[in-house]
C-alpha cells in the first residue's frame, strides 16, 4: 500500500473521525499536567530576572504563544495545499479549525507583549518589529476566517480561504522582513523581546515545558473542532448517524 493510498484512507471523514477520537482525549490528558508543571516551574521554581524582576515571567506565556501563532499559520498552509490539490474534506475541516486557535494565540501574544511592555518600556504599545508583524498576522487570520464564513457554500468558502492562506504564506516572510527593515531604517536598534544573550537553564525549562503545553492544547482543540466541522457538514450521511446511534 503506497503512501498516498494510506493518506487518502486516513483522510476519509469516517476514518478521521474514528482515529482522532483517542488523540483528542490523550492530548487533553497530557495537556493539563504539562500546563500545571510548566506553570509551577515558571512561577515558583525559576528565579525572577535580575533586570526585569517578576515581569519577565510573562515571557513564559508570551514566547510559546508567539511560536504557535506562526506554526499554526504554516500548518494551515499545508492543509490549504491539500484543499486545493486533492480537495480532501478533512483538509478543509483541519484548515478552518486551525484558524480561530491561531488567531487566539496571536491575540495572547499581543496582549502579553503589551502587558510586558508596560513595566519594561513604560508603554503598552511600541511599533516594535515583532509586535507589528504579529498585529498584521492577527488581521491575516481574521481575513481568512471572515472570507471562509462569507460564503454560503462552506466548501467554496474553504477553498477561497485556502487560496488566501497560500498567498499569505508567501507574503508572511516579506511582511516580517519589511517591518524589521523599516525599524532598522528609522528607529535605530529596537529592544528585543528575547536578547541574543544566552538564556539560563532555570528560565529555559519552563519555556520548553510550556511550549509543549501549547502544542498539546492546540492539537486537542484543533482536532476537536475539525471533528465537529466534519460531523456538521456530513450530518446527513449514514456514517455519522450510525456513530451517533441515530441510524434506523
Amino acid at each position: 500500500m503506497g503512501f498516498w493510498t494510506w493518506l487518502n484512507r486516513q483522510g476519509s471523514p469516517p476514518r478521521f473521525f474514528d482515529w482522532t477520537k483517542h488523540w483528542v482525549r490523550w492530548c487533553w490528558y497530557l495537556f493539563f499536567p504539562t500546563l500545571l508543571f510548566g506553570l509551577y516551574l515558571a512561577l515558583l521554581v525559576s528565579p525572577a530576572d535580575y533586570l526585569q524582576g517578576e515581569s519577565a515571567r510573562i515571557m513564559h506565556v508570551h514566547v510559546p504563544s508567539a511560536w504557535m501563532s506562526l506554526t499554526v499559520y504554516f500548518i494551515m498552509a499545508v492543509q490549504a495545499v491539500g484543499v486545493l490539490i486533492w480537495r480532501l474534506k478533512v483538509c478543509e475541516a483541519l484548515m478552518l479549525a486551525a484558524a480561530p486557535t491561531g488567531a487566539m494565540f496571536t491575540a495572547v501574544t499581543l496582549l502579553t507583549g503589551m502587558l510586558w511592555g508596560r513595566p519594561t518600556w513604560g508603554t503598552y504599545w511600541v511599533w516594535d518589529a515583532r509586535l507589528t508583524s504579529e498585529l498584521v498576522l492577527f488581521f491575516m487570520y481574521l481575513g481568512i476566517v471572515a472570507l471562509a464564513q462569507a460564503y454560503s457554500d462552506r466548501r467554496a468558502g474553504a477553498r477561497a480561504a485556502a487560496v488566501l492562506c497560500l498567498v499569505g504564506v508567501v507574503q508572511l516572510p516579506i511582511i516580517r522582513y519589511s517591518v524589521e527593515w523599516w525599524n532598522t531604517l528609522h528607529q535605530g536598534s529596537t529592544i528585543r523581546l528575547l536578547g541574543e544573550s544566552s538564556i539560563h537553564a532555570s528560565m529555559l525549562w519552563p519555556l520548553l515545558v510550556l511550549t509543549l503545553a501549547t502544542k498539546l492544547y492546540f492539537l486537542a482543540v484543533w482536532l476537536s473542532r475539525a471533528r465537529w466541522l466534519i460531523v456538521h457538514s456530513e450530518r446527513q450521511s449514514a456514517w455519522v448517524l450510525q456513530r451517533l446511534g441515530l441510524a434506523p
Partner: protein
Amino acid sequence: MSRELRSVTTAFRREIKLALKRPADIWLSVGFAVLVTMLFGIALGGSPNKLAAAGPAVLFTTLLLASFLAVSRMFAEDLEDGSLDQMLISPSSLTAILYGKVLAFWCLHGLSLVLATPILALLLRLDMDQLPLLLLTCTIVTLGLNLLGLVGAALTVRLRAGAMLLALIVLPLMVPLLVFGLGAVMSASQGESGIAGLALAAAETLLLLALAPAAAALGLRITSE
C-alpha cells in the same frame, strides 16, 4: 505571437476601450486621492514641520487607499454583464486574460494616480528635488498594489459583504509595499540614496507579477463553481 500573448493583448485592449467610454471612474480615484490628502492637510493644521514629517507617509497611505477602492470594483461590471462567465468558459487561459486585465487596470488607474502624485506632493509640501524618485517609486508600488487587489477582488467578487471584507483581506498584505515605497522616499529625504527601498519594492512587485494573476485565476474558478 503565441496564443497566450494574444489573449493578454485582447483582454488589455477590451479593458482600455471599456474604461475610456467612461473616463469618470479614473478621475474619481484621482479625485479621491486629492480629497484624502486635503483632509490630512487640514487635520495636520498645515504647519510645514508636521507636513514635512508626515508628508511621505500620508502620500503612500493615500495611494494605498485609492488603489484599494478602485480595485474593489474591478470585476463588478464583468459580473453584471456576464463577461466574467465568458472569461471562465473561454478556451484561452484565464491567467492570460487576467494579466491583460490587471495591466490595463494599472495603466488607467495606477498611472493616473502616479500622474496625480506631483499635485499631492505639492499639497504636502514635499521636496520637489525628489520628484523623479517619487514618481518611479509610485509607478512600481501602484502596480504591486493592483496585483494584490486583483487577488482580493477575485476572491470576493460574488460576495455581498464587499468592500469591508476586501479591506480585511488585502490591506495586511499591502504592508510590505507601503513600507518599501515609503522607505525609498524617506531615506532619500534624509540624504541617502533611496535605491534599497526602490529595489525591494520592485522585487515584491515582480514576485506579485509572477504569482498574483495565477492565484486570482484559481480564486475566480473556485468562487464560480
